[in-house]
């Protein structure tokens, strides 16, 4: 059976872990730039705060109801997530970490309810985060179970009896099924497929000729035929992306160049942390759709391919700037920019080229020294001169909580 373990209101639960005074009070967590609401406590949901709602739209509700607002503290959430996943490994070796707050486990043990109870209890006591568990023959069914589990206090739901499962599926709206995009859901609703039960009844060939093979797979999964097994092998990242919306539009080339340098530097840092090299580099800049200065929307995008895959800060920043040169248009005001590293390969498994001479050793040494200093003394102690040091206009996190677990300066201070 496949168990889906899903953390309840994960970011909010993380914020509450070291703030017991916030239990039972409404709490929300904001996206990277304090732009939108991305996690809500049940109390905040009841007050009508919507998922993804921009902060400015919710401001009135927030002030009237004294909702506690936090910027996203991804260092804290990442550490708590790691802890949860490690604890889950004690239940099964076959575990697939699906996202920061979700994992699939393949467990062959008859007493499903007991395992669910143990999982909920263990994560709650040893890490301190509430989770819900959905169980089914396939990933899609376990997702249905997880969806139902969130609605009941005990926090888990097992779809094992075929008759009960059939009844549930015949009532389950198609848009609540995992893996069906909104477009396909709409198409199906328009064609009379309103519930999971309707989809199961539909003929395979009809699905293949009107929709696609993924929808067919979902149908198979709903009747208990596994198409997406739990894969414990972590899939390496296919690309690394660093992009931001600017608080204020950027018009000057020099400023844009500084931002792009920053993005390229932190993308390289992520690349190096994963022991990888990139073969492909892309840079994009887009204008503000809503700004009056811009006569029309412009999005510049260009790729560069390295002859030998690289993980050098200098090389990646240098080529990012040269791409920016090509895509920058004067007189526009830019809202968003980003750097993407693609076609990643392992540090030690890349093809060298006989066109490019092997000058890498010294560069490698230099890069390692940069990593050493920045890891030890704090990010951006060493940087490239093209970078922007004043990050205030990007990192706009005004309500950031302390990094309670991983920093001596931030550990909880408790009056006893």
């Amino acid at each position: 059976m496949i168990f889906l373990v899903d953390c309840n209101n994960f970011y909010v639960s993380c914020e509450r872990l070291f703030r017991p005074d916030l239990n039972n009070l409404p709490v929300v967590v904001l996206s990277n730039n304090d732009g939108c609401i991305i996690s809500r406590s049940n109390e905040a949901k009841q007050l009508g705060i919507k998922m993804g709602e921009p902060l400015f739209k919710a401001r009135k509700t927030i002030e009237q109801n004294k909702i506690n607002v936090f910027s996203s503290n991804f260092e804290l959430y990442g550490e708590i997530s790691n802890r949860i996943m490690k604890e889950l490994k004690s239940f099964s070796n076959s575990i697939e970490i699906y996202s920061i707050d979700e994992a699939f486990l393949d467990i062959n043990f008859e007493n499903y309810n007991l395992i669910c109870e143990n999982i909920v209890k263990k994560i709650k006591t040893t890490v301190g985060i509430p989770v819900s568990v959905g169980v089914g023959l396939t990933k899609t069914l376990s997702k249905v179970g997880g969806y139902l589990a969130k609605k009941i206090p005990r926090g888990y739901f097992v779809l094992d009896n075929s008759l009960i499962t059939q009844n549930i599926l015949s009532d389950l709206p198609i848009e609540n099924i995992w893996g069906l995009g909104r477009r396909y859901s709409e198409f199906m609703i328009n064609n009379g497929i309103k519930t999971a039960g309707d989809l199961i009844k539909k003929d395979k060939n009809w699905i293949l000729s009107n929709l696609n093979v993924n929808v067919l797979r979902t149908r198979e999964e709903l009747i208990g035929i596994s198409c997406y097994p739990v894969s414990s092998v972590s899939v390496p990242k296919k690309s690394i992306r660093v992009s931001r919306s600017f608080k204020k539009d950027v018009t000057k080339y020099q400023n844009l160049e500084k931002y792009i340098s920053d993005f390229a530097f932190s993308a390289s840092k992520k690349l190096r942390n994963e022991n990888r090299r990139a073969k492909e580099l892309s840079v994009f800049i887009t204008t503000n759709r809503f700004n009056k200065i811009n006569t029309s929307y412009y999005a510049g995008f260009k790729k560069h391919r390295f002859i030998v895959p690289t993980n050098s800060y200098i090389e990646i920043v240098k080529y990012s700037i040269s791409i920016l040169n090509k895509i920058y248009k004067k007189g526009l005001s830019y809202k968003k920019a980003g750097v993407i590293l693609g076609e990643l390969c392992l540090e030690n498994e890349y093809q060298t080229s006989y066109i490019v001479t092997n000058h890498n050793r010294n560069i490698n040494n230099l890069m390692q020294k940069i990593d050493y200093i920045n890891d030890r003394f704090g990010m951006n102690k060493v940087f490239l001169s093209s970078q922007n040091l004043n990050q205030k206009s990007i990192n706009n996190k005004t309500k950031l909580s302390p990094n309670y677990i991983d920093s001596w300066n931030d550990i909880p201070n408790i009056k006893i």
Partner: protein
Amino acid sequence: MYFRDHIYFLNTVVSAGFPSPAEDIFASKLSLQDYLIKNPNTTICIKVSGDSMKNIGIFSGDILIVDKSINPRNNHIVLCTLDGQFLVKKLSITKNSIKLISENKNYPLVNINEYDDFKIFGVVTASVKKFL
């Protein structure tokens, strides 16, 4: 594969004289991390202030190591929450009562009632004091 946390060096210079008898012994360094923290994945550190636990040797500024995976038992020092507040106290569990005991006679004993919002966060396994 390599182990990032434990790198042992065997620093040997080959010479013609009598070989050192200690040459084959890999020396591992004492790790306070290993000594103080049994379950890193479920352990957090907190800093405390106040004198309510001074008789057991917990003073202002000490760092306490709290393991969430240990089952709290009678006489354990615990980090708990009572009505939304963190507390560090000695736990007294009897058949029909839970009490929180301070290690300082100036602080009263706290009886936990059924209706109290009380949770044990973790068990305090060690206290670390630095002098400099």
